[in-house]
């Protein structure tokens, strides 16, 4: 068994949220650059250039990429041979967020209750998903998720007879309904299968995969490429103002499901899909 002290978890989370909010992942920057080179609408090119310049300025000025520094989703893969010492995992994570948001001068965007709506003042609690894994490592991935894109996600329990075409139609519907609100160019995270909450979790996890990596299954990789093309043909464009860059990627994850079910969830990530993954 390997022991990990909660202090190390807090420090890791703190550094991860600070990095995530300031420095956009290189795969997304590269995809934005390629999109800007290919974009045919002059207005859209102007906006893409500003978005790219923003990624440089944020690092230079040590300032948040976007003022919506989000509610933090934390994905934890906890090796079975790890013993957490000195406190509780969730408390350690929340403490890391509190310190990181304070030191980073990030906006605190979390309210205590959906009805009372009092700002908690420190951007906690996080939304923590914890899975057990093999081995003695602890992997923590943070995703500060803004509401502009999160609010545009949808889930549908399709009938199995609707099949793959039903899934394709649903993806296009969600992106079309969202229009310019999720700050396109977007990343569409799609979860198919499992049950209701599993599909939603798969969709969120799909957003954690870099935009230049396709699903390892050939048929799904092809589906991702086909859907990216179809989404870009919608013409929504950067910020919904028209153009041929609506999405940078469509990432699809699947899971076994019930004979009578075909759940599909689409979770949209904005161009500021800020993720950092660290292994302890």
């Amino acid at each position, binding site marked *: 068994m390997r022991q990990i002290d909660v202090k190390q978890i807090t420090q890791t989370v703190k550094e991860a949220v600070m990095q995530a909010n300031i420095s956009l992942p290189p795969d997304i920057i590269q995809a934005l650059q390629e999109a800007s080179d290919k974009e045919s609408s002059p*207005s859209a090119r*102007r*906006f893409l250039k*500003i*978005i790219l*310049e*923003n990624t440089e*300025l*944020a690092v230079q*000025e*040590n*300032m*948040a*990429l*976007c*003022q*919506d*520094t989000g509610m933090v989703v934390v994905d934890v893969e906890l090796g079975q041979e790890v013993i957490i010492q000195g406190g509780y995992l969730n408390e350690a994570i929340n403490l890391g967020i509190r310190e990181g948001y304070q030191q980073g*001068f*990030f*906006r*605190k965007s979390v309210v205590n209750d959906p009805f009372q709506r009092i*700002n908690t003042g420190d951007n906690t609690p996080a939304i923590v998903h914890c899975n057990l894994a093999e081995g003695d490592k602890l992997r923590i991935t943070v995703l500060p998720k*803004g509401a*502009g894109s999160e609010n545009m996600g949808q889930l549908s329990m399709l009938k199995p007879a609707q099949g793959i075409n039903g899934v394709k139609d649903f993806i296009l519907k969600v992106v079309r309904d969202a*229009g*310019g*609100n999720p*700050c396109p160019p977007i990343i569409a995270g799609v979860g198919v299968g499992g049950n209701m909450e599993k599909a939603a979790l798969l969709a969120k996890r799909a957003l954690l995969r870099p935009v230049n990596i396709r699903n390892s299954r050939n048929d799904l990789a092809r589906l991702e490429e086909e859907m990216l093309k179809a989404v870009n043909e*919608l*013409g*929504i*464009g950067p*910020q*919904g*103002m*028209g153009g041929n860059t609506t999405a940078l990627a469509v990432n699809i994850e699947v899971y076994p499901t019930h004979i009578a079910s075909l759940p599909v969830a689409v979770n949209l990530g*904005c*161009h*500021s899909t800020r993720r950092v993954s660290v292994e302890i």
Partner: protein
Amino acid sequence: MKLLRAPLQIEDIMELSMGDEVLVQGSIYAARDAAHKNMVQSLENGEGLPFDIEGQIIYYVGPCPAPPGKIIGSAGPTTSGRMDTYAHLLIAKGLKAMIGKGPRDQNVIEAMKKYGAVYLATVGGAGAYLARCIKDVETIAYPELGPESLLKMEVQDFPCVVAIDARGNDIYRLEKGAEVADD
């Protein structure tokens, strides 16, 4: 590239067409949900607004706190649709331009046509870039609202596109195949 500077006259507004690229200069007011709610409540109670709104520009933003040595933190636009229920009253009182991101509802567009106002879209998510265009910030009302308080800002070369003009041409509806009114 057109330059816009408040206070705006009706002629300035009528010169703008959907799709025009503009750079906003000078004073703008920053407000989001809670400040809008307060302003509209004041008007409904028959009280005045904390500033003279005639010809002015409101930017829908709730910035990050200012890091040491900076006047403001990251300051990109928030989703304008949440301000739709408040906008028509402010437009009726003389508001001439709104800056935000995403589409507006038909009531807002009707008010823009009736009183002469434009809706400008800026780049969502470009908070660090837009913060650099903000040269001065002053809290003028509702300090208790924190990031939602009412601010007056001085901006320079603040990049926008005319998303909806005063004739009701709407860039967000265009992709869905709407006709353009060019009267």
